[in-house]
């Protein structure tokens, strides 16, 4: 296998992040025994090639700039899947993380009773790989640490995002492998809302590409805070533009979740 890998290096078509985002997303990519791909986007690197008889697709993925422990967890050695000789293709598409994200602002946020506040954050994206029309796997483009939102006996597992909640979208440092998430928080309670964590349920959010914008956007998130001991009402609104991925779960009626970690 190592020998094969060395041969691949020689014939590999290296695809940079810019090229990958511009030309390789949401489009069918056809491979042959001579066309090997090496993709890099964010921390994620992937190599794909066909076996000599073009009956199998071989792939492996790596991550740059992570510790050995993380490498053990996220990286894979060469593995293979069946490939259809005539008309077989692969397709990459952007996806939101497969778990909720927990935003951890730099400082405690306060919202007065009756106040409506708009905020923006960026959410690192994953990429989904489909082979011959079937979804094969999802890979995060940025490795995020896991966290827990809620009490130890009742809560939700999610990814932690630090220092990313800003009042203006212009201040966000964005890349094309992240999505902008607009959040609107309404304080309907009689007391001040002081929170240090905010949980966003990405499973109910879609991913879109607004017209004339190269940065993807998630569904707009509207959170209504009703009080310390009450669940927040949540609704997700379509920001417009082309749909990159629909929500994993359909929002049938208004959702209520614990969304704030109150100070």
């Amino acid at each position, binding site marked *: 296998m190592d020998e094969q890998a060395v041969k691949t290096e020689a014939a590999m078509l290296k695809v940079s992040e810019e090229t990958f985002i511009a030309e390789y997303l949401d489009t069918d990519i056809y491979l042959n025994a001579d066309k090997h791909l090496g993709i890099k986007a964010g921390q994620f690197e992937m190599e794909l090639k066909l076996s000599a008889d073009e009956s199998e697709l071989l792939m492996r993925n790596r991550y740059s700039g992570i510790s050995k*422990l993380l490498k053990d*967890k996220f990286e894979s050695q060469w593995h293979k899947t069946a490939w259809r000789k005539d008309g077989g293709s692969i397709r990459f598409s952007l996806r939101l993380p497969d778990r909720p994200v*927990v935003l951890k602002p730099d400082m405690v946020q306060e919202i007065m009773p009756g106040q409506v506040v708009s905020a923006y954050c960026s959410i690192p994206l994953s990429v989904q790989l489909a082979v011959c029309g079937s979804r094969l796997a999802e890979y995060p483009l940025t490795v995020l640490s*896991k*966290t827990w*939102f809620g009490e*130890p006996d009742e809560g939700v597992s999610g990814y932690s995002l630090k220092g990313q909640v800003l009042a203006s979208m212009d201040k966000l440092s964005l890349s094309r492998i992240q999505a902008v998430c607009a959040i609107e928080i309404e304080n309907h309670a009689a007391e001040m809302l002081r929170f240090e964590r905010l949980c966003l349920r990405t499973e109910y959010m879609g991913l879109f590409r607004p017209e004339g914008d190269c940065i993807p956007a998630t569904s707009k998130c509207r959170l209504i805070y009703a009080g310390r001991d009450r669940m927040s009402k949540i609704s997700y609104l379509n920001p417009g533009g082309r749909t990159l991925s629909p929500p994993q779960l359909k929002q049938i009626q208004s959702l209520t979740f614990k969304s704030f970690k109150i100070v």
Partner: protein
Amino acid sequence: MLDEILKLYNAHHPVIHRIAMIVLSGVILLFILNTYLRIWGGKKLAPQTRLILYKIINYGGFIIITLSIMYELNIRLTALFGAAGIAAVAVGFAAQNSLSNVISGLFLLCEKPFKIGDLIKTEEQLGIIYSMDLLSVNLRTFDNLLIRIPNEKIMKATFVNITRFPIRRLDLKINIAYKDDVEHAFEVLRDIARRNPYCLDEPEPLLIFQGFMDSSQEILFGVWFEKSDYVVLRNSILKEVKKRFDEEGIEIPFPHRTVYAGAVTPSFPVEITDTPKSEPENAEIENR
């Protein structure tokens, strides 16, 4: 022989027809109920609830079918019930333990302290709940043995459900030498937890200075993790603690004792010499 059977059939054919109908309709009804339970219950019910409903339906169904057949055969059920009452007293004395197990099983099902697939630790055993039956709970150990624990025993015993909640904390007692700075060790341990992908960053790692031990300062280091990550977290975090402590020059001391004769008396003169050469076997005897 055939004639006799035909005569018997002609004499009793209405009863035979009714019995056949009872058996057929009973079996079909049980089949439909079981199928419905498998399909509907497979999505909506917990495995143990499904199991108990399955047993109630089948045992109950077969008892009703049997009693109906007996009724059709003109067997006096009142007399049978009377006899059954007496028999029940006798059987009750003989089957005290079994009845106790059945009732304990029902309490366990209502209370739901664990479900199939949970990892539990009793006073003697550690294993995954394999099945919950009428009389017993079966555990599958990690070395793939099946342990049967009577319901009554598990009802009375204290046990720990290790996987009841989605996250757990791994507590490690870590000892460092008296020469080392505890605050420095805290910083290193926090960093280890932060870098480990299996540690949750929230709830935050627990660090408690436990106190002064015989040969060391003891620290309690608790990290939170998702219950499925136990083995990989335990292995990685212990290896990482040892590696980082070595890098940072923090000593994990082995138990040792200093012999001190007090300030008033001078200390014992100790001289370290080479390993003594072996002496003849009788030398000790001669010295005596």
